[in-house]
């Protein structure tokens, strides 16, 4: 009787009765009896609490057993539902944005939704920088115009530039009518940036200004701008279609031939060419923008060089217009 019951023996007493001597010990040993009573009481309180809870929440009638399994009710708190919903939507939105940053997705969207990208060029205002223009001037001097910087481009023209500035009480800085981002060079004196002459001269032209042209601009053109061409702006360039300039219209076309190498290699694709259609409707300055290789670029250039266009027009006058031409090579 000196030793107390082991854990196993106490458990056996509670679980399923036990050996007679264990039960006898449990009756006689105060410690072991107290331990057993404590455990038994605790378990019976647990049983009682569970029973009370169960009978409290069990309000359902047993008859509904025969209706089969009812639909599950939505349970849980509304707040939790709201927070979960918010989190789910935020994650979804974030996923969409993150997906949108991937390049393959962007290119796919661009491919699929080309109709969203509207060509606004016909509706845009005239773009001076691309639509040519030009200016010219001079003071009927013997020498060509000297090299120098262009006057400040202004939207309005009052005072033609001169290489040798005129002393005046009220200085009116000379200007040309050109876009503000016209290419210029750093120099102390005004002049024609394209000239090579260093000796100061206003040029052989007339009407004030600098150069061999007329009307008070700079350069060989006619106008108050700079460079070749007429009217205003920065000339010497060609026009692009749109903004008051009509696109060249194809009149005569020569089909490109297939090169022998490309035919053998069954090579297909598109050559993208850039041409300048001049005032006569002839393509000049044919350049390859996107090459295809295997001699097809040259074939495309040869063919396009023979094409004839109705030139692009601005204000009823034929003007040189730059255009891109796609030449498709397909093996049938």
């Amino acid at each position, binding site marked *: 009787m000196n030793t107390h019951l082991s854990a196993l023996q106490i458990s056996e007493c509670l*679980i399923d009765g036990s050996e007679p001597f264990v039960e006898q010990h449990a009756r006689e040993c105060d410690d072991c009896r107290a331990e057993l009573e*404590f455990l038994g009481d605790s378990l019976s309180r647990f049983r009682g609490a*569970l029973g009370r*809870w169960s009978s409290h929440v069990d309000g359902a009638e047993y008859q509904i057993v025969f209706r089969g399994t009812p639909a599950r*009710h939505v349970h849980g708190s509304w707040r939790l539902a709201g927070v979960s919903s918010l989190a789910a939507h935020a994650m979804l939105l974030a996923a969409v944005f993150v997906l949108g940053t991937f390049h393959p997705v962007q290119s796919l969207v661009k491919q699929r939704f080309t109709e969203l990208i509207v060509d606004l060029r016909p509706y845009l205002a005239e773009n001076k920088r691309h639509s040519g223009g030009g200016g010219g001037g001079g003071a009927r001097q013997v020498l060509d115009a000297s090299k120098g910087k262009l006057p400040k481009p202004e939207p309005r023209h009052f005072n033609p530039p001169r290489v040798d500035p005129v002393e005046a009480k009220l200085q009116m800085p000379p200007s040309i009518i050109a876009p503000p981002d016209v290419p210029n060079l750093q120099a102390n004196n005004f002049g024609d940036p394209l000239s090579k002459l260093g000796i100061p001269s206003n040029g052989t032209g007339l009407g004030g200004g600098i150069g061999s042209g007329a009307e008070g601009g700079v350069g060989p053109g006619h106008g108050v701008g700079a460079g070749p061409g007429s009217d205003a702006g920065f000339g010497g360039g060609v026009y692009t279609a749109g903004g008051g300039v009509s696109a060249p219209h194809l009149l005569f076309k020569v089909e490109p031939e297939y090169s022998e190498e490309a035919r053998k290699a069954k090579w297909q694709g598109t050559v993208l060419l850039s041409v300048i259609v001049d005032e006569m409707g002839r393509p000049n300055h044919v350049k390859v923008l996107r090459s295809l290789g295997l001699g097809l670029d040259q074939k495309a250039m040869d063919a396009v060089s023979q094409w004839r266009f109705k030139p692009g027009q601005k204000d009823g006058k034929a003007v040189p217009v730059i255009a891109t031409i796609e030449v498709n090579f397909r093996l049938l």
Partner: protein
Amino acid sequence: MGTVVTLGVADAGGTGTDSSVEFDALVQAYRPRVFRFLLASLRDRESAENLTQDCFLRAYRARDQFRGASSQGTWLMQIAINLVRKHESSSRLKFWRRALHPGVHPEDLGDWISDRQVTPEAAIVAKEQVRAIWSVVAQLSERQRTVFLLRFVEEMDLLEIAGATGMKEGTVKTHLFRALQSVRAKLEVTK
């Protein structure tokens, strides 16, 4: 109960429920026990109610196969145990249950102790004991919890538990012993 259709005559053993009236009596007799066991196992009133109904529906459909090898209570409890296992093995439900009830017990069983305690101190002690057992039961494995509940809540004997769980009597005893050790250890802490 008029909507119930008698599916067939029970087997020759005579213990089967061959009429809706008998089955009605069975439901009346055993529904509280089954519900209590399911509630204690799942700790969720909705699930316990659903599974109780499932249990009796299955019993009703399979009543022809009941051979009377065990008591009706054991048979029903066997169905309930299988339903609990199936319910818990569903990983989808497990995920949502964890998400909805992260680590807290949905019910504080300490609130349901008998109010016939002698003193407030005794009431607090009783409450602590019940809470301790309830928290241990939550941490037990599914088998240990099942045998513990069947033995100490439903007061079934070892043979009945063995019949209901499909385990051997020795295995049931081992599980019970381990569950009881956990409970004792926890109760020692709260003493």
